[in-house]
């Protein structure tokens, strides 16, 4: 007799372990694939997971099988026109359908890529492994501006609105029990004596009974005088102020769009900003992005215009920094916001402007920001802007960072350099 079992409810996700083993084993390949996938995203689109594809040959598990060559016979179905002895050309690419050990169909659909899905958390995990947000710790400890009241036990002093009734009554009750102990013990004893005397006819006893009754009345009166509640009993909820790190962050994307910024440079900048956004997004509940593009003058714009508008002109970097500062003062108070500025440029600037930039950054921007990062996307010599910035970096280690990106391949490594966990700094 057969047994029929409903297994649908238990033993789900049996392959989870194996799936994780797989991801673990191919960590590096998955990481690479994740970085490639970053390309195809808009900056604020980090809601979903991703299809990941890995070259199939890297995953293959070897088994001994026959290679091309030698002699073999293969039987096929569906003959329509052949006769024994017919000869024809060997199909292109060696054995083709003639190769007969079944390994050819091993990969199923025959694609070169192994495609599978990872979810959003996994995606971000691979992307930001070993990265840390600069100055995140410092912000929490130093620039605390918001507090949250948190309960922390009870006190015996406080304002009436914090009175804890239950605790107070419990204390009063305890006090009354403690203070009335001897009297009540006496009353109990007297009552017992009284009951015995009540059944006795003896006169002396009757007299004693009267005495006892009087004493009991006295004692009861004394008990009644015990206050029902005393100041001493009152208990108040104790609240302490707990510093609440701000959970808001704003990211300024500042980009040079002067004539020298080619489409490719902008593309690199976009990927850099995207990484930064996804990175911040992991650490803050709410994150806003401000896009500022500049040539000889600066303008705030939306993402699309930021990367794709064609308007252009000369280069005055300080214009953008000044605008950044204005927006900061207007909308993002440093006491409420964690402020990050990321600037991308090809390093070209108007001669006299660079020192102005330095001044603006050091005096106006750095005091308000968590972290200022500058990437120069170029493969040419450094211009004066770079040298001015170098001085800022020397003066503000760990607070201001700069790197040069020469091509697409540099984006991720440079991003990592700018944001990697610095043991010394946090210690």
């Amino acid at each position: 007799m057969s047994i029929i079992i409903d297994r649908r409810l238990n033993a789900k996700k049996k392959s989870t372990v194996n799936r994780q083993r797989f991801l673990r084993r191919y960590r590096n390949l998955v990481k690479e694939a994740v970085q490639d996938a970053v390309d195809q995203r808009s900056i604020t689109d980090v809601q979903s997971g991703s299809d990941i594809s890995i070259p199939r040959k890297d995953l293959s598990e070897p088994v001994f099988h026959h290679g091309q060559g030698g002699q073999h016979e293969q039987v096929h179905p569906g003959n329509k026109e052949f006769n024994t002895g017919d000869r024809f050309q060997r199909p292109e690419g060696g054995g083709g359908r003639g190769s007969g050990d079944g390994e050819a169909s091993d990969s199923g659909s025959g694609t070169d890529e192994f495609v599978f899905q990872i979810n959003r958390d996994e995606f971000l995990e691979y992307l930001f492994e070993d990265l840390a947000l600069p100055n995140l710790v410092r912000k929490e400890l130093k620039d605390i501006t918001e507090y949250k009241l948190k309960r922390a036990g009870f006190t015996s002093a406080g304002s009436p609105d914090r009175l804890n009734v239950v605790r107070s009554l419990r204390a009063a009750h305890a006090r009354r029990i403690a203070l009335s102990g001897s009297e009540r013990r006496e009353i109990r004893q007297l009552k017992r004596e009284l009951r015995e005397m009540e059944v006795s006819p003896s006169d002396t006893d009757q007299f004693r009974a009267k005495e006892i009754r009087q004493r009991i009345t006295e004692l009861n009166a004394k008990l009644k005088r015990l206050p029902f509640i005393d100041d001493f009993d009152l208990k108040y909820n104790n609240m302490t102020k707990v510093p609440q790190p701000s959970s808001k962050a704003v990211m300024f994307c500042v980009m040079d769009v002067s004539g020298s910024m080619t489409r490719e440079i902008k593309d690199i900048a976009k990927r850099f900003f995207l990484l930064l956004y996804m990175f911040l997004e992991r650490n803050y509940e709410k994150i806003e992005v401000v896009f500022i593009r500049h040539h000889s003058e600066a303008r705030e714009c939306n993402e699309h215009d930021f990367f794709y508008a064609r308007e252009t002109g000369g280069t005055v970097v300080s214009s953008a920094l000044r605008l950044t500062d204005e927006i900061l003062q207007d909308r993002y108070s440093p006491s409420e916001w964690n402020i990050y500025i990321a600037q991308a440029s090809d390093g070209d600037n108007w001669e006299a402007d660079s020192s102005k930039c330095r001044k603006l950054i050091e005096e106006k921007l750095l005091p308000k920001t968590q972290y200022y990062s500058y990437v120069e996307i170029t493969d040419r010599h450094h211009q004066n802007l770079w040298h001015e910035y170098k001085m800022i970096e020397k003066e503000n280690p760990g607070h201001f960072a700069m790197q040069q990106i020469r091509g697409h391949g540099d984006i991720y490594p440079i991003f990592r350099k700018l944001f990697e966990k610095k043991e010394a700094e946090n210690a």
Partner: protein
Amino acid sequence: MPDNETLERELTQPKPVKQNFISTGSEWTFELLEQYDREFARLADKFRLDTYPNQIEVISSEQMIDAYASVGMPLMYNHWSFGKQFLSNQQSYQRGQMGLAYEIVINSNPCIAYLMEENTMPMQALVIAHASYGHNSFFKGNYLFRQWTDADSIIDYLLFAKNYIAQCEEKHGMDAVEEVLDACHALMNQGVNRYERPRPISPEQEKQLAKEREEYIQRNLNDLWRTIPVKETEQQAKEFRFPQHPEENILYFIEKNAPLLETWQREIIRIVRKVAQYFYPQRQTQVMNEGWATFWHYHLMHEMYNEGLITEGFIMEFLHSHSNVVFQPAFDDQRYSGINPYALGFAIFQDIRRMCEHPTEEDRYWFPDLAGSDWLDAVHFAMRNFKDESFILQYLSPKVMRDLRLFCINDDDREAYLEVSAIHDETGYRNLRESLAAQYNLGNREPNIQVYSADVRGDRSLTLRHYMHQGRPVEDNSALEIIKHLRRLWGFDVRMESVDQQDKVINHYELPSEELYPEEEGV
């Protein structure tokens, strides 16, 4: 398919039997599953299908993908390759590129078969007939399974293996275990005994013996690897060969003789070897096993129809699935990926029955013993006593060759062309049959690779030999990968030689020296 014509003829004939449908809708319930199963059991009995007790489990599609991923075994140990399989199946399933095969059945006692909850009632019935009565009776009846697999203890053994490997991971780290498993998986096909029958053993004994083996092996190894102080004469050295005869079971050889492995590593090799051995009969009887299961779901279902237990719609849906299963695209069809074992196996079993019941002159000439005999005796005999290779050699009839329009291509790399060496005509039948049978001989399919010698008195290197068959080389890249794996297990240099029929070495496979000691150089 030729069989559909007969089907349709049967269906259009009036059915005198009183109708007594078990169900009419397409929804299934547990009560219905039980009722259908009861009817199948009754009919199976009538057809002398001897089975292990059935355990039928209803699962979701995700669980099916799960089950799929670990070679169908519910208690397989963990390994990344099963995860890869899972992701791959999940992706194709979600994209609709792959329908889930509707059945997985496990050669155990009780025999476990899975039904997917998404299936309709006719599909569930089909799977029960196919897996729980078809495959099940094959597992119990076929000589290879009887000889090589122990249905009573496989589940317990897998449980032991899973726990043992998990413990190893805890003790020695996941990477260390993975390294051994990867190497073993690469050599799985070389981890079976083809001709010796292993002694069946219970899982409790297994656990106990695992302990005893620990000590024994190490003791023996010490003997084998003891440095020998006595100086030998040239002659003595020449005569001493280890192993004395080439060993076909490479994993077995490694388990017993690798000098540097730790006991737990030897045990893992043993586990993979056991699993490989357990699956070996399945690899040798694919055509027969699927053909047999298909043959029986077809007959059991028709019997149900003839008795008026299922509706016309029911059997039409069944026939639709059935003809998908036995569909054989022609060689020039986009969908063609070799011969469909379901189609071939089903066609041969059907043909055996036909030759028994309605023999032609041709059948009397080719199969004088079958023509006119009892068909049930004939198919049971065929099921019990053959494997794919001998089954085809014994039963592939001219009619089936004609129906499938088989032809044979000879591919000889010494010639510039391919040649059609046989087609389905009088002169070609025998040729075709032998070629097709040879195609299912695992010995021809897989390179024949054996442990040739271990230099126990010298540099301890290991030499494998590939005995070439019809001049066919092994594929270089994977061969080198496997040698790399093997080297990790053996601990010293490993090389492989391809030799021809005259024992002349044709090819060498050896790791380039920079790959031999990468760790040492790196440190």
